[in-house]
């Protein structure tokens, strides 16, 4: 009984926070609109709204790109994280090199290398695929470090007791380490998803018609730069903010499960 109450209280306080944030954004938007208008700027949202479909298609592409890249980067990241912790020195060194390399070059350059560099030898592969690959290979270097931190935070005794029961290392990973590690890495992992969605905008430079490039084309035909970038800013926000909210809820839920099991 007591617990249900606290769950409802949690939801209410979260709801109030979301409402406040939304309100502030609306106020900020309206304030900027008012200030710029009084400074003489002629807003032309009508021209931009004609291209509603272009924005929506761009958003859909951004979502597809982000989801695919996220799925792949989780897999790559896990492999690299395990490689980093490998007892075989060569594997550990290769994984470390991977992380160091991709963390120290800009994503824009990675995308360019994949598409115009490697891509020139494989003309049949589409820019969508190159974008996914570049993004996931790049983000994997960050996700790998998040995973490694989470896995290393699990006490070695947990592994030993799982192995003493006859579990293989992979089973131990699947049933004992990852479920526990997930709890501690969830905040940083969702942070990384949000980063990934925003980073996906860089795929526009190789001509992938996602949200950012969609906005550029609209600017090209309407010259309404402020308006159309404001629209996609809102789009990105609407996609990313719920991810953070879901992460907060999941985090609370997991903590609650741990503390109040009955």
């Amino acid at each position, binding site marked *: 009984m007591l617990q249900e109450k606290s769950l409802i209280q949690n939801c209410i306080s979260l709801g109030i926070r979301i409402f406040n944030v939304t309100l502030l954004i609306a106020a900020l938007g309206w304030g900027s609109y008012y200030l710029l208008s009084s400074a003489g700027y002629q807003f032309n949202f009508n021209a931009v709204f004609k291209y509603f479909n272009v924005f929506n298609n761009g958003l859909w592409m951004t979502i597809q790109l982000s989801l695919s890249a996220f799925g792949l980067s989780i897999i790559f990241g896990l492999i690299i994280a395990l490689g980093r912790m490998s007892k075989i020195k060569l594997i550990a060194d290769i994984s470390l090199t991977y992380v160091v390399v991709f963390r120290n070059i800009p994503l824009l350059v990675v995308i360019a290398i994949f598409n115009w560099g490697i891509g020139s030898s494989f003309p049949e592969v589409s820019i969508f695929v190159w974008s996914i690959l570049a993004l996931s290979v790049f983000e994997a270097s960050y996700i790998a470090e998040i995973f490694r931190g989470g896995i290393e935070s699990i*006490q070695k*005794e*947990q592994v*030993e*007791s*799982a*192995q*003493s*029961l*006859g*579990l*293989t290392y992979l*089973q131990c990973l699947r*049933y*004992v380490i990852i*479920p*526990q590690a997930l*709890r501690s890495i969830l905040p940083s992992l969702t942070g990384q998803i949000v980063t990934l969605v925003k980073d996906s905008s860089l795929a526009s430079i190789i001509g992938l018609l996602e949200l950012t490039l969609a906005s550029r084309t609209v600017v090209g035909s309407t010259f309404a730069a402020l308006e159309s970038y404001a629209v996609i800013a809102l789009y990105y926000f609407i996609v990313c903010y719920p991810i953070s909210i879901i992460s907060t809820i999941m985090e609370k839920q997991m903590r609650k499960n*741990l*503390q109040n*099991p*009955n």
Partner: protein
Amino acid sequence: MKIKIDQISKWFGKNQVLRNVSMEIESSLVICGPSGSGKSTLARCINGLEKVQAGTIYVGETEVTSPKTNIPQLRQKVGMVFQAYNLFPHMKVIDNLMLAPTKVLRRSREEAYETAMSLLEKVGIPDKANVYPDQISGGQKQRAAIARALAMKPEVIIFDEPTSALDPEMIQEVLEVMKGLVKDGITMIVITHEMGFAREVAANIAFMDNGELIEMAPPEQFFNRPASPRIKDFLQKVLL
């Protein structure tokens, strides 16, 4: 199951922690000795948690020290109970018991559940089945950990200082459960300083010091006619 340890030695870096230890274990054995004497390491070598650099260990017909041995398979027969319980905190007690039987032995959930419940009865905490480990006392945790090891129906079970982290009033409840196991005929290797328990339950008591096996003898002989003055010193300290 018979365990045969032959001339094993082990080093951590330059530090030799086991020196030419040989012993044969057929029924319950208690290993004691001062801390740092290598008793824990010896026990951990038996289920392959530690590797030896010289010598051989046989558990039944299986050579633990051979690189060809399937160690996970060996561990299905050799259970282990740790000082710090090491229950899985993200699973309820019942799921702690069911994990290995369902995933390793591929038992059905129903069958694993039956076994798990009967084991929780046996260790006296059936009412804690649906509770997370953080919600129960140390003694209950250790009993749950024993039940978890038993759920694999091991032929050997190693206890690495199972009561050292417990409050005095909880030590007895864990020792009672362990005494029950002796009657079931499981080969038990117990590292403990509980000499009363050793006297009552052990077929043999081994004393280790500085990586060496000093003596291994039945309790009566061990307590009344210890072979070495080091054992006398040790007994005086722990029996005080």
